[in-house]
């Protein structure tokens, strides 16, 4: 399987919302190439007819009763927010006007 390039790491960092520095990018690209080379061994089983396991427990769609129960107050929910305005989370611009 092919390794990973510096450009690919830069693209993945953007997708992951990580504003990496240039030297960090160089270092990670090198390390990730080694890691991916090592973990690629799992593809030995790619052709085998084995069902995948996503989770150790055989659970699906666990529901709770639709009843009101105690929850955080608005003050508590906002207590860790970097910025707050009128009982809401204040965030930087999201639509590109400005």
């Amino acid at each position, binding site marked *: 399987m092919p390794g990973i390039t510096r450009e690919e790491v830069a693209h993945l960092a953007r997708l992951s*919302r990580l504003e990496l520095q240039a030297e960090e990018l160089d270092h990670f690209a090198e390390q990730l190439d080694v890691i*991916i080379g090592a973990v690629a061994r799992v593809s030995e089983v790619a052709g085998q007819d084995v069902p995948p396991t996503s989770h150790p427990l055989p659970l699906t769609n666990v529901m709770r009763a639709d009843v009101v129960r105690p929850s955080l107050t608005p003050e508590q929910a906002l207590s860790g*927010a970097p910025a707050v305005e009128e009982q809401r989370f204040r965030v930087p611009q999201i639509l590109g006007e400005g």
Partner: protein
Amino acid sequence: MTELIKRTAADTAAAIASGEVSAVEVAQAHLDRIDAVDKKVNAFLHVDTEGALSAARAVDEKRAKGEKLGPLAGVPLALKDVFTTKGVPTTCGSKILEGWIPPYDATLTTRLKDAGVVILGKTNMDEFAMGSSTENSAYGPTGNPWDLSRIPGGSGGGSAAALAAYQAPLAIGTDTGGSIRQPGAVTGTVGVKPTYGAVSRYGLIAFSSSLDQGGPCARTVLDTALLHEAIAGYDPLDSTSINAPVPAVVEAAKRGEVRGMRIGVVKEFAGEGYQAGVMQRFNESVELLRELGAEIVEVSCPSFTLALPAYYLIAPSEASSNLARFDAMRYGLRVGDDGTRSAEDVTALTREAGFGAEVKRRIILGTYALSSGYYDAYYGSAQKVRTLISRDFDAAFAGVDVLISPTTPTTAFPIGERADDPMAMYLADLCTIPSNLAGNAAMSLPCGLAPEDNLPVGLQIIAPAMADDRLYRVGGAVEAALNDKWGHPLLEEAPAL
């Protein structure tokens, strides 16, 4: 009288219940110990002196009123900083959560408080529990009390070091790939990863949700069992919580005998990369179990050789998704919000500033493994490996009651040795990862010192899911026999701090 800080949790609880000592005296003795040695050890990120003393006072008042105390009432505990604590800082070892005060308690925190356990503070850990040495903490490394220049294991190095340094008789860890068992092994303490789903994950800051499992750590098998019983059990707030009775672990720890049990030695956990002294102590443990009346069987689990690669695809994949919540909008750090930058840019700048190198590496690796074109080859194959590993366990447990192996291939390595070599670091979890992938139960307990470096070696015991009691039965037997042989617990041989 044994010094208060050296007592077991069981003895401490009994002394408090009988009135020999007060819970406040016990708490103060441990706070004094932390004060005296933690500058050297750095096991704690936050010490909650007020909270601890007030919880201890509540236990003393309850006793004065003649109310019945639980089996761990008044016993101090060190809590890994991955569990939320209402009103007490919770950082997960990361700068991105520096200064965050959770508005709610994790279910585990609530259970500890309800049991009258005295939470002393929050312990150091690899950032977001990613690591095997605690060097990935944003708040500096923790020293191993056996040799402060060596790692205490990770990610729960702070919890394990706090036990070995007599800062607390009980601690909580979380185990995603070995983060309870490996620190236990390298510090000469006991740690259990319960069956997946046995201990609630509500309020446990998520790393890899299908693998993460909170569990008990202590200096003795019985203390570990008492803590296990206090924290395990169904929780409707965690959709992956098992709704079944908790196995009788305390009874099993007290019984501690292995006569007639069939114990499997996993052939694949040996060979290249395993330290000679680790294998020597492990092989002696196998002989000990035989002498105690167990039947020893060699078993083969061929898929275990693919466990490490599968883990380093599955865990980063889930982490890349879980850590998307750190977006600088609702809590935690926010960087670069100068009125001109977009929310997206602020998120990217914040994550760059707030996450350490290992967290970034894993987020990128996980994003890669989940991206189109690579998904089937990497994540898809890793999920198939997970099935094959479970089948290997099923086949093995058809013929034996428990499996045993060394917990880690080597003893504690020097701080810095593997810090910038991710693949070398990942090898520390070689023997512990299969149990996380399959979701079964496993324990590490001390089985001696490696002759070449005089550092602790851990024996791992693995039991089928929901048979956690077998860990304690075997662990209790091994611990009693070894203490008899040595004339004292292994930790007595650790140098004074």
